[in-house]
């Protein structure tokens, strides 16, 4: 009975989404306040219903109810509890339900925490959101229903793909979806503004917290996914330019551009049309990502099932929403008013440059991802566009952007002084040059390119700090005075600094781990050793392991440095018996920010084992940088101005009368 209640709640949510998409919309067009108020209650009710439905599915997984087809296909009664729960979204149907849950969650958040939003705008935003929910609820119910039942019910499930039985899976999709789906709010705001015909600085300020929130989650989700690929796939790589990775990276690039252009719109009311376009584009890319991943157009670990009807359904959703949005944009864009004026060299100009480069980079990734698919569809020819393409195109576009990043915050609004900004960045430039000179002296010219990358990273980090140093007059006034000034700076300024510093950290990690890594593949027998830099790994022997639905072998290594034991590492080979699928679990030890990475190949009967040992210099900085960027986003989100314009609600809403 419980399972059926979850199923019914989902159906009811669809009915409410249809009502919530039409009634408030009608109300907004007629200027009817009561009808517009329906938007908030239906948004919250939709969320409660989908949450109930999701809870029921989770319950079915936890108690291993094998009368639910989805549970049979993706679970096993012996799986650890954590993976039973994460298995809920470790498959196509469940992950689409999570998608919808997050969609309606954002709707409910807008309904509950936007007291300062004009009622009409709010009603329009929530009806657009309801239309998106309705489309995806329909998709879930018709083409990928997780509540389908089996009768008679089997006594055991088929277990989850072992690669997905991992803590990474428990966290990565929800974070990424919060990011993906969060973009739907800026999209809904953009559409609402186009319908309403009113787009101004106030609008930009209302959208900002939602965009920023989505961006933070997207950043975390991508970083998490990259780290998961790094330790789970056992190849030591952290980014493969895999179409699925690109599908999440494109919305991130667009969202980053949107964040910056929205600042211009909010502060100076310029770039209106562009900002609206970016908001539509960002969510379109999110939808495209969902389509690519879920339709089975791409086969990868993410493509849980390949089913053409699903692909066509999502494609239809894609066409209706993106096509509709762009038509509306084309019809209305001309009527948007003129914004504030600015000179080319100015804060606005710097942000425009940022936007140009980010969108061009995004377009590059788009072409690199979709061109092979289009070519295969048209001519049947299969080509693979991989890292070399992106290194040649994406890389060169990022370099000028990264060089320009520290200049931005130093330029004044409307008209800036590039020379003065340059002077203020002399220290950062000096620091970067010092790194190059010292590096060349120590390592010689072969490392010149890597050193240039390191210098770029130092430039970014020191440049970001220089801005705060300049604003607080660090070194020119007493430390206490600098502290006072620093505390007085708006949080968004701190957010900018922290986020830009984070990019530097990530760049440093990328360059160092690419330039100074070592990879050793060899066959070892127990007792033999391998030397990696200053560290010596000794293979001690085999340990049988077993847990839940797998059995396997781990190999114990002792790591010594100068004769002292500094660590033990136990990479594993597992065999998941239900799906008869072997996996490797790499062992990773972090020294400072660098990592030693050991994974296993074949184990022969005589105990000789193929071992891959990687040394990755400063690799942890890649993900640490993403965390720092996110921290910058959160700081900016806490800025007081995002709360201003939120007149305190005159009175608490009275308890609802029982009707």
């Amino acid at each position: 009975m419980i399972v059926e209640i979850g199923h019914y709640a989902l159906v009811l949510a669809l009915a409410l989404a249809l009502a919530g998409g039409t009634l408030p919309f009608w109300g907004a067009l007629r200027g009817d306040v009561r009808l517009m108020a329906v938007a908030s209650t239906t948004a919250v009710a939709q969320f409660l219903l989908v949450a109930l439905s999701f809870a029921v599915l989770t319950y079915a997984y936890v108690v291993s109810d094998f009368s639910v087809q989805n549970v049979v296909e993706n679970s096993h009664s012996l799986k650890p509890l954590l993976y039973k729960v994460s298995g809920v979204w470790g498959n196509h149907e469940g992950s689409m339900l999570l998608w919808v849950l997050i969609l309606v969650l954002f709707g409910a958040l807008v309904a509950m925490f936007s007291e300062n939003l004009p009622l009409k705008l709010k009603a329009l935003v929530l009806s657009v959101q309801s239309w998106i929910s309705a489309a995806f609820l329909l998709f879930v119910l018709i083409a990928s229903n997780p509540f389908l039942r089996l009768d008679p019910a089997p006594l055991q499930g088929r277990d989850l793909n072992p690669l997905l039985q991992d803590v990474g899976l428990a966290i990565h999709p929800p974070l990424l979806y919060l990011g993906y789906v969060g973009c739907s709010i800026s999209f809904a705001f953009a559409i609402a503004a186009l319908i309403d015909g009113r787009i101004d600085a106030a609008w930009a300020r209302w959208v900002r917290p939602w965009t920023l929130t989505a961006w933070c989650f997207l950043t975390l989700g991508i970083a998490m996914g990259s780290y998961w690929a790094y330790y789970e796939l056992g190849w030591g790589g952290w980014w493969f330019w895999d179409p699925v990775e690109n599908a999440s990276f494109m919305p991130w690039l667009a969202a980053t551009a949107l964040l910056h252009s929205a600042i211009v719109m909010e502060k100076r009311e310029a770039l209106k049309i562009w900002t609206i376009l970016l908001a539509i584009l960002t969510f379109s890319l999110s939808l495209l990502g969902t389509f690519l991943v879920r339709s089975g157009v791409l086969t990868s670990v993410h493509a849980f099932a390949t089913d053409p009807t699903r692909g066509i359904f999502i494609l239809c959703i894609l066409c209706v929403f993106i096509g509709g949005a762009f038509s509306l944009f084309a019809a209305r864009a001309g009527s948007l008013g003129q914004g504030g004026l600015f000179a080319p060299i100015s804060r606005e100009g710097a942000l425009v440059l940022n936007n140009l480069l980010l969108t061009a980079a995004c377009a590059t990734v788009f072409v690199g991802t979709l061109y092979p698919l289009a070519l295969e569809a048209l001519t049947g020819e299969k080509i693979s566009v991989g890292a070399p393409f992106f290194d040649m195109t994406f890389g060169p576009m990022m370099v000028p952007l990264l060089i320009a990043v520290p200049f931005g915050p130093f330029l004044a609004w409307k008209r800036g002084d590039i020379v003065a900004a340059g002077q203020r960045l002399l220290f950062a430039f000096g620091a970067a040059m010092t790194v190059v000179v010292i590096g060349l002296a120590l390592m010689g010219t072969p490392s010149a390119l890597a050193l240039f990358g390191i210098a770029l990273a130092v430039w970014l980090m020191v440049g970001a700090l220089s801005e705060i140093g300049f604003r607080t007059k660090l070194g020119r006034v007493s430390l206490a005075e600098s502290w006072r000034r620093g505390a007085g700076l708006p949080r968004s300024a701190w957010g900018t600094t922290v986020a830009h510093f984070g990019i530097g950290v990530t760049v440093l990690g990328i360059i160092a781990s690419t330039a100074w890594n070592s990879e050793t593949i060899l066959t070892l027998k127990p007792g033999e050793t391998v030397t990696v830099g200053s560290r010596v790994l000794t293979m001690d022997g085999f340990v049988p392991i077993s847990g839940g639905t797998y059995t396997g072998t781990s190999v114990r290594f002792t790591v010594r440095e100068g004769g002292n034991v500094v660590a033990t590492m136990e990479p594993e080979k597992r065999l998941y018996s239900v799906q008869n699928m072997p996996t490797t679990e790499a062992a990773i030890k972090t020294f400072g920010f660098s990592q030693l990475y050991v994974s296993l190949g074949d184990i022969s009967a005589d105990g000789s084992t193929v071992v891959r040992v990687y040394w990755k210099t400063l690799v942890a900085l890649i993900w640490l940088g993403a965390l720092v960027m996110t921290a910058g986003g959160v700081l900016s989100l806490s800025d007081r101005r995002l709360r201003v314009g939120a007149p305190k609600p005159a009175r608490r809403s009275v308890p609802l009368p029982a009707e």
Partner: protein
Amino acid sequence: MLLWIVMAVLTAAASLAVLIPLGRPPRAASAHAGAARSIYRDQLDELARDRERGLIGDAEADAARVEISRRLLNSDAPAPGDATGASPAYRIERLVALVAIPIVAIGTYLYVGAPQLADRPVASRQAEPAVEGSVDNLISKVEAHLAANPEDGRGWEVLAPIYMRLGRFDDAVRALGNAKRLLGSTADRESLYGEALTRASGNVVTEDARAAFDRALKFDPEDVRSRFFIAMSLGQAGRKDDAIAAWKALIASAPADAPWLSAAQAELAQFQPTATVTPAAPVAPGPTASDVAATAEQTPAERQQMIEGMVAGLAGKLEADPVDTTGWERLFRAYMVLGKPEAGKAALVRARALLAERPDLLAVVEQAAHDIGIGKD
């Protein structure tokens, strides 16, 4: 019944989500103008702060102030569609809430849902009668039991023959290994273990299997299954005369109605084409738990078919992965056992083609073929 009550409550709550705001007097709504004005005022303050911190020049700040002030003034102008005329009846809207939502929800649910099915959490199903279950279900029950009590030797022993019957030989090897460890060796366990190993490696009696049969014979020198497979291993090793002797001894000691008799005679016939083959014993009507899994039980035709299937599978695997030298060796041996030396010769030719670039591996394969006797005549 409870299900329908809960569904009715949910539906009522959903309808209320639409009805309540319709029935509530309009609150002092924050109109666009008011909300926007407070933001513009804040922008003016912010501009002053930016000016103090040198984020914008004096002249530009003045220009910006003019821009913002102009917007502040404009925001007072009423925008089209901001009128708040309310139509208090809401007949259609109430109809949507009370009729359309329940109809859409119930209608869709009846189409996609399965209200008649009860929940079946696994914990409540251990007591379910086995009749419902297929063999798969029975196995999962025993497996679940063994996962919780891995030291239950009896459980492993019960499971092993079922695995054999299903062709899950690797699992059978594991189960019998556990049974031997927990319950101790017996002739029966050892010989079944040996058979599982043999079957797992494509009906080739491996060294491990041979050792198991030898152990079984120590417990019971008359153990038929062990003798059967040892005779088979002699044939596979090319010891033709020993094999003939072993088969003859086995057949001589067999009761006339032994189910494996015809299989043994068929084996013997490979070495002695003149030996008489008695017609296949009538096939037992259905498998029972007692007559599990011995090669001898199958009719010669079935057995031949199964072996040929395995050999074809092995040949296919080698096409894809020719560097597996032991695979080639097994393939040659299998063809010899099947009495198809010409197929073995063809396989050797194929190996030469596939391994043209790996002379080192090819040498191993050639040697194996030579030892087995392929390509001699």
